[in-house]
C-alpha cells in the first residue's frame, strides 16, 4: 500500500496525507489527532481515512492553507507537484536497492535458484509431463496460497477488532526474529559458501547477533531513519529470496497476477479486509503498526517529540512478516515519533517542518513482490539481462503511475496492480519477442 504522510507542526502528529495535499504551513488541524497512523497493510496505498466531516474540513483547510494562507489552490497544487516528484524518487531509490540486492544474490549465489522442495502453501508439484496438468497445478497452488493469505488477513482483522494486541504483537515479534536471525544466518552461510570464504562460529555468532539485535531495535523501537530503512530493505530482500527459491515457476507468475487482483479488491472494496482494518484503527484513533511499512519521511523532529501521547499510547502492532509478505496484513504505522530522535528543542523553523514532514510510505509486501518479479525474471531462462532490466523499468513506471493516480484521486491505492501488470507484460514479451531479436542482432553486431 502506498501512503503519504505528513505531520503537523502543531500537533506534531504524523499523519498520512497525500503529498498532494498541500504543503500547508499551518498544518491543518485535520492532520492531527487520530490521523496518525492509519497505515495500512502492505499492499494498499492508503490515505488517511477520515470521517466525512473531517474530510470536508480538511479539504477546506487544504485548499486554503497551502504554503501561504489564502493562496489559490493552484499554488497548492503546484507545491504538491513539486513534492510529488521528490516523493517518487524517495520511493524509487529503496525499490531499486531492494531489487539490486535480490538480483545480485540470484545471479551469484546458486542456492536461491536450486529447486529444493516447495513451501507447504504450494503443495502441488510442477514436474508433470503435460502442460495442461502443470497449468492446473499452478492454478491450484495459487488458490491455496491466496486463500491462506485471505484467511490470515481476516484473522488479523478479527484479532484487531477484539483488541488482542498482545497476541498480534508477539506474533509479529516472532516473525521479525525469524527473518532477522534465521534467514540472515542462512543467507550469510550461502554467500560465504559461494565465495569460498571461511568464517568461524564465534565470528558468525557475533555478526548475526549484532545484525539481528540492532535490526529488532530499529524496526520495533527507535533508531535512525536510514538504518531502519536499510533493515526494512534487507528483510524484504530476504523474504523475496525465500519466495523465489521455494515457489515453483508457473505458480510464481500466477500468484503474482492473483495477488495484484486481490490487492485491488482488498483495498478498494468497501468490505475489503485492509480497508476495514484501517477504518477500525481510525475509529480508535490508534496507529496501526510499526515496522513493515517503509517510511521515506525525512527526519523531522521537534514536533514529533511532543507528539507522543497518542503515539506512545498507541499500539504498535507489528506485522507478521511471514504471514504476509504478501501483505495484506501489514499495516504500517507512522512511526516517526518512535523512530526519530527528537533533535532540537523548541520550534526552530516551523516552515521547515512541513517540507520535511511529507513523505510517502510503501508497504513491505510491495517491495517483496516487486523483487520477486524481478528476481524471477533474473533467475529463469537464459540468464538474460535484458528481461531483468525491462521488468525493472516497467515496475518503476508502474510505481510512478500509481503515485500519479494517488495524487489525483487522493485516496488509498494499491501499489501492486499497475506495476505487477506492467512487469508481467514486459517479462513475457521481452522474454519471448525481444530476446531473440536482440540476440540475433548482437550476434551479427547490428545496431538499431
Amino acid at each position, binding site marked *: 500500500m502506498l501512503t503519504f504522510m505528513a505531520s503537523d507542526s502543531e500537533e506534531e502528529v504524523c499523519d498520512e496525507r497525500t503529498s498532494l495535499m498541500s504543503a500547508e504551513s499551518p498544518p491543518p488541524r485535520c492532520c492531527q489527532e487520530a490521523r496518525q497512523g492509519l497505515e495500512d497493510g502492505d499492499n494498499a496505498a492508503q490515505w488517511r481515512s477520515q470521517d466525512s466531516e473531517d474530510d470536508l474540513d480538511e479539504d477546506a483547510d487544504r485548499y486554503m492553507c497551502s504554503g501561504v494562507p489564502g493562496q489559490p489552490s493552484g499554488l497548492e497544487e503546484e507545491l504538491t507537484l513539486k513534492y510529488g516528484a521528490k516523493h517518487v524518487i524517495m520511493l524509487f531509490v529503496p525499490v531499486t536497492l531492494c531489487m539490486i540486492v535480490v538480483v545480485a544474490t540470484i545471479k551469484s549465489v546458486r542456492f536461491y535458484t536450486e529447486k529444493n522442495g516447495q513451501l507447504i502453501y504450494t503443495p502441488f508439484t510442477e514436474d508433470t509431463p503435460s502442460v495442461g496438468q502443470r497449468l492446473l497445478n499452478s492454478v491450484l497452488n495459487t488458490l491455496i496460497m491466496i486463500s491462506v493469505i485471505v484467511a490470515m488477513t481476516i484473522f488479523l482483522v478479527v484479532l484487531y477488532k477484539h483488541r488482542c494486541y498482545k497476541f498480534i504483537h508477539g506474533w509479529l515479534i516472532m516473525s521479525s526474529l525469524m527473518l532477522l536471525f534465521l534467514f540472515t544466518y542462512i543467507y550469510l552461510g550461502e554467500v560465504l559458501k559461494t565465495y569460498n570464504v571461511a568464517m568461524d562460529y564465534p565470528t558468525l555468532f557475533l555478526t548475526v547477533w549484532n545484525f539481528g539485535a540492532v535490526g529488532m531495535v530499529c524496526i520495533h523501537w527507535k533508531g535512525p531513519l536510514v538504518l531502519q530503512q536499510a533493515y526494512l530493505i534487507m528483510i524484504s530482500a530476504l523474504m523475496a529470496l525465500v519466495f523465489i527459491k521455494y515457489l515453483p515457476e508457473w505458480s510464481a507468475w500466477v500468484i503474482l497476477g492473483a495477488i495484484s487482483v486481490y490487492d485491488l479488491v482488498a483495498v478498494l472494496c468497501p468490505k475489503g479486509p485492509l480497508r476495514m482494518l484501517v477504518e477500525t484503527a481510525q475509529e480508535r484513533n490508534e496507529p496501526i503498526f510499526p515496522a513493515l511499512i517503509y517510511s521515506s519521511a525525512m527526519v523531522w523532529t521537534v514536533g514529533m517529540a511532543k507528539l507522543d501521547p497518542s503515539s506512545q499510547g498507541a499500539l504498535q502492532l507489528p506485522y507478521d512478516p511471514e504471514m504476509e509478505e504478501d501483505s495484506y496484513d501489514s499495516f504500517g504505522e507512522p512511526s516517526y515519533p518512535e523512530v526519530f530522535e527528537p533533535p532540537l528543542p523548541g520550534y526552530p523553523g516551523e516552515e521547515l517542518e512541513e517540507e520535511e514532514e511529507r513523505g510517502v510510505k510503501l508497504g513491505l509486501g510491495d517491495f517483496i513482490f516487486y523483487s520477486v518479479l524481478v528476481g524471477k525474471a533474473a533467475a529463469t531462462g537464459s540468464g538474460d539481462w535484458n528481461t531483468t532490466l525491462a521488468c525493472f523499468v516497467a515496475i518503476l513506471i508502474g510505481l510512478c503511475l500509481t503515485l500519479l493516480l494517488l495524487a489525483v484521486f487522493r485516496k488509498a491505492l494499491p501499489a501492486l496492480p499497475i506495476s505487477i501488470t506492467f512487469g508481467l507484460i*514486459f517479462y513475457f514479451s521481452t522474454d519471448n519477442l525481444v530476446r531473440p531479436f*536482440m540476440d540475433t542482432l548482437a550476434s551479427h553486431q547490428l545496431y538499431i
Partner: protein
Amino acid sequence: MTAAVFFGCAFIAFGPALALYIFTIATEPLRVIFLIIGAFFWLVSLLFSSLFWFMARTITDNKDGPIQKYLLILGALVSVLIQEMFRFVYYKLLKKASEGLKSINPDETAPSMRLLAYVSGLGFGIMSGVFAFVNTLSDSLGPGTVGIHGDSPQFFLNSAFMTLVIILLHVFWGIIFFDGCEKKKWSALLVVLLSHLLVSALTFISPHYGINLVSTYIIMVLMGIWAFFVAGGSCRSLKLCLLCQDKDFLLFNQRSR
C-alpha cells in the same frame, strides 16, 4: 577475457552516460522521472519492432538461409522507424505535460523543452545502449577466447565504442528532433531519421570495423555540433566556457552552492 576487459568495456560504453547522469540529472527528481519514462518509451518501441520481426519470421516460416539475414536487416530498419516514431510520441506527451505543469505552476519554472529534449535523448540512449551491450558485457566476464573461429579479436572493444557512440547520438538526435518539432522544421526530423538509418545501415558491414566505427563517429561529431547550435550555443559562448570566463555560468554555480 577477464575482469579488465569487463570493466574497460563497461566504462568505455557507459562512462560518459553515467557522468552525464550524475552531473546533470541525478540532482533533480523531475528529470530522473522523465529519463525513466524516456527509457520506457524506447523499450516499448523495441517491443513493437521485435513483434514486427517475429511476425515477419513466422510468415516466412523460419526458413534458413539468406532470407533470415534480409529479414533481420528489414527488422533493424523498421525498428529505427518505430524508435523515431516513439520519440515523436514522447515529444507530444512532454508537450502536454509541460503545458499542464505550466498551468499548475505559473511561478515555478517547469523544465524547458530543451532540457526535456536532452533528458529524453539521454533516456533513449541509455536504454538503447544497455539493451545492446549488457549481455555481451556479462559474457565478457566469463572464460573464453575471442575470435577463435576467425572473427575479429576486437569484438568487445568494437561493441563498446559502438554503444558509446549510439548513446551520444541519441542525446544529440533528441535535442535536434525536439527542436525541429518545436519550430515545425520537419526537415530536421527527416535528417535525424535518415542519419539514424544511415548509422544502423553502416553496422551491416560489420566485419569492417574501421569504416563503420569511424564514419559513425564522424556523424556523431556533426550531429553534436548541430545540436550545440540548436540548443543555443555559439562559438563565443564556447570560447568563454573553455577559458572559464563565462560569468553567467560561474555565478550560477556559486549561487547554487
